[in-house]
């Protein structure tokens, strides 16, 4: 009998079932979350199939006729795709670099200013744009740039200059869009950098001062190198999303103004339009699939590169 007991003992080293039973309550707590991501994130991935069909809303996903790569073919040959890709990538690069640089400048200055009241007021105000909806951002740009009564045109008129109709001028919008995006993210980003700067040991500055380092030297030899890992991390994090535009920003500033598409259309706005205006599900899906697949490959590549360069900076 004793022998048998020993025998069963060796059999009951924690099996999958036992391990599950030990943490079953934790698994139960995760059920709604797992169900949510399966339903709203993983199941839509099956919808990639859409890009290879001639989608008919009544027939649904599985019964719509399969047409292979034709949607991609149309998309690439239509001539739209090149500009979508160019705009998406260039805007995102400008957002990432421009945004981070302005945020760092603000953080360095705010960290330097000793008047706490000034810092607090300034920080509150530059953080304010982060809180408002893109609809309101769209209204702001309307109030600034529209031809009839926009502030800029009012000022131009009062000074005796010719009015400038922004909504007809494609060349003006890259600057406006980039400026607005930097404006909206400034508060958030500068807080991130400020938190890094305030974490730097003050003694380092102290000894640099004793060695006779000027302010500029302290900034360029201490502060900026200390910020570098955060900068690289944030840039990397955003590089992975480089094929995803800031849909709300573009849509609220430009809307369906076809005159400006050449310089303002990005993959996201194209996909949205193909769903709500043109009802071109096939080509829209094809663009979406391209975005997702290449975005994913890009994140993995960038991550792998950074990992080789510096293990600690990699995302995963």
């Amino acid at each position, binding site marked *: 009998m004793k022998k048998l007991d020993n025998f069963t003992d060796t059999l009951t080293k924690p099996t999958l079932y036992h391990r599950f039973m030990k943490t079953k309550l934790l698994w139960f707590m995760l059920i709604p979350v797992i169900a949510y991501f399966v339903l709203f994130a993983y199941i839509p991935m099956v919808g990639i199939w859409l890009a290879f069909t001639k989608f008919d809303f009544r027939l649904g996903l599985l019964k719509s006729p399969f047409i292979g790569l034709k949607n991609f073919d149309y998309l690439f040959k239509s001539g739209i795709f090149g500009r979508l890709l160019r705009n998406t990538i260039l805007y995102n690069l400008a957002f990432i670099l421009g945004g981070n640089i302005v945020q760092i400048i603000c953080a360095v200055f705010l960290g330097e200013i000793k008047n706490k009241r000034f810092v607090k007021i300034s920080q509150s*105000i530059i953080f304010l744009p982060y809180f408002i909806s893109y609809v309101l951002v769209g209204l702001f740009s309307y109030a600034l740039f529209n031809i009839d009564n926009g502030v800029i045109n009012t000022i131009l008129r009062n000074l005796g200059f010719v009015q400038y109709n922004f909504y007809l001028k494609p060349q003006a919008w890259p600057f406006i869009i980039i400026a607005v995006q930097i404006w909206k993210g400034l508060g958030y980003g500068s807080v991130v950098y400020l938190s890094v700067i305030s974490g730097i040991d003050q003694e380092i500055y102290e000894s640099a001062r004793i060695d006779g380092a000027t302010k500029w030297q302290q900034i360029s030899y201490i502060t900026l190198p200390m910020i570098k890992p955060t900068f690289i991390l944030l840039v990397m994090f955003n590089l992975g999303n480089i094929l995803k535009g800031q849909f709300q920003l573009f849509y609220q500033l430009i809307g369906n103004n076809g005159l400006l598409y050449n310089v303002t259309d990005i993959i996201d706005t194209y996909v949205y339009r193909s769903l709500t205006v043109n009802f071109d599900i096939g080509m829209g899906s094809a663009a979406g699939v391209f975005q997702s697949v290449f975005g994913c490959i890009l994140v993995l590549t960038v991550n792998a590169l950074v990992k080789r360069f510096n293990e600690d900076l990699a995302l995963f």
Partner: protein
Amino acid sequence: MKTITLQVKPDKGTRTFTLLGYFVMTIITIICFIPFWLIVVASISDEHMVLAEGFKLWPALISFAAYRSIFQGFDSLMKSYLVTILITVIGTVFSLLLTSMTGYVLIRQDFRKRNMVSFFIYFTTLFSGGVIPTYILFVKYLNLKNSLWALILPCLLSPWNIFLMRNFMKSIPYSLIDASKIDGANDWQIYEKVILPLSKAGLATVGLFIALTYWNDWYHASLYITKESLYPLQYLLYRMLSNAEYMKQAAAAGIFLDTVTLPSETLKMATALVVTGPILFLYPFVQRYFIKGIMIGSVKG
């Protein structure tokens, strides 16, 4: 007792630098503030003056006519307020519950599959079906067109918020969990009685992020809501602005003018303020939570 600090006289470079800092930050602060100022001024300007001379940074003639007409057409605005408050409250409560539960499970070191679950969640940010399949799922298969659930569900859980919450909870000493287990508390009791009360700051931060997402959302309404009584505030504002633009173009083309009255310029601005109001009002109180939250969230976890 007075502490004596030895003040080294700042050298010339430092003073120039500080002055430059004040100068640059003042300009940036003003740039950030001007649009808000502009909307406030425009909303209390006299309509005729705006049409004749354009928006100004200082009202030539003050008039509250726009606010009066908002309160005359109060019905649709009130309905939208109700919709927005409803989805914000329901969404934030459920989201916080689920987000904090997940965060808690993911910090449990005895939960062996936590890395697998983390990756399961993170992967959705890496790769997604995209807008169109999601739209078809919602409309054709879940039948959620013109349902408030179509506004609540898409923003309910975000991987980013889950990881932010997990990072917060990681700062709670793990020995508390072990001690509670020895005292005989089960996994749920530990979550409810130990972890939640200690995560108040994290709950406040993430809760504010979620509430802001719901309050500012117009996008999902534009996809799924066609019934005017279900418009959330931001979408109502968006419809008002984009329709006005459309009508203006139509009027310029001579299509119609008499049958419709365009919302006046000042009315647009006043509506925008009423719609954004609660955020601007709450802003000074919640801002410090955001700053704290970002500072903790920015630490890689």
